[in-house]
């Protein structure tokens, strides 16, 4: 196996982390601190219909899934010694990430 660098993953992880932190502050304060009506069905759906919010949510979703599952993959890399277990973990991670992404995508795009 060729030597694997981790430079790009390392860099993107930090980049995405910074972005997510900014986005999550917006998302979390909106949902939890701007009044209970923000969590009502009508309000949520209205936001999903706005193209700006739609792209916000899509970017947020993508970044979170990438950052999170890459993080899990790094943890696996740190503690799992056996190559076959690693491959198994990678497959599961990819399935989970892809599955969650499709569910999220469907939710955001439906409205």
């Amino acid at each position, binding site marked *: 196996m060729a*030597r*694997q*660098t*981790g*430079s*790009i*993953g*390392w*860099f993107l992880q930090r980049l995405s982390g910074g972005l997510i932190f900014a986005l999550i502050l917006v998302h979390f304060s909106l949902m939890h601190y701007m009044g209970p009506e923000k969590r009502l069905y009508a309000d949520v759906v209205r936001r999903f219909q706005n193209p700006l919010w739609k792209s916000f949510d899509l970017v947020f979703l993508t970044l979170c899934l990438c950052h999170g599952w890459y993080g899990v993959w790094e943890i696996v*890399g*740190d*503690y799992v010694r056996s190559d076959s277990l690693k491959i198994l973990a990678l497959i599961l991670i990819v399935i989970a990430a892809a599955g969650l992404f499709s569910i999220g995508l469907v939710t955001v795009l439906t409205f």
Partner: protein
Amino acid sequence: MADTLGLYTFKIFRYNPDKDPKSRYDTFAVEVRQGMTILDCLQKIKGSLDGTLSFRRSCRSAICGSCAMNINGKNDLACHLQVSRLRGRTITINPLPGYPLIKDLVVDMGEFYRHIAAVMPWLVRRSPCPDRELLQFPADRDRIDSAVNCILCGSCTSSCPQFWFNPRYLGPAALLKAYRFIFDSRDEGRDERLAIVDDRYGVWRCRTVFNCDEACPKKLHPNEAIAGLKIEALKRSV
């Protein structure tokens, strides 16, 4: 100068694979005088209480790096740590974590040395050298100053949880050594050496736990070197 500090209890890790099914702790009471180091106490125990106690030591002036061990939970050199600096009357001594045990406080540092050797730790010159010295300005020399002072005691790598889980990880000492040459203004082997470091068992295995910086008895900062290497390795891939 000969003021006594009183009686201290030394709780020392003991294990001889030839005899002992498992490790244990032996306790020794030592009358400590002002100015005595941990190594002085170990010598005293070995000389008058139990000659079988095994540990490495040589220069006793904090430059050879033989006597690195885990003292009250932290890696340090036994020879330069004054007993009076420690809190409490009981001192627990363990071997350096993460290396295979040989006997008592002696560990097998083969992996550590192999990792040092793996980063091409020598000056690479392709262009011919002049008759005189290669010039190097003080600012360039300063850049490698702390890396040059590493004594290879192994404290840092031994304190790194990433090394505990992955003995293949080069570890802070080897990365510091790589830094010492990559950032030496006279060196011409930068690319090959960066390629070695830019690996998932190289610089990217570091999780910035900072144990290494705290463990270093010479107050060096492997983490700063590793941060520098990460940036260089990143530049290389983009």
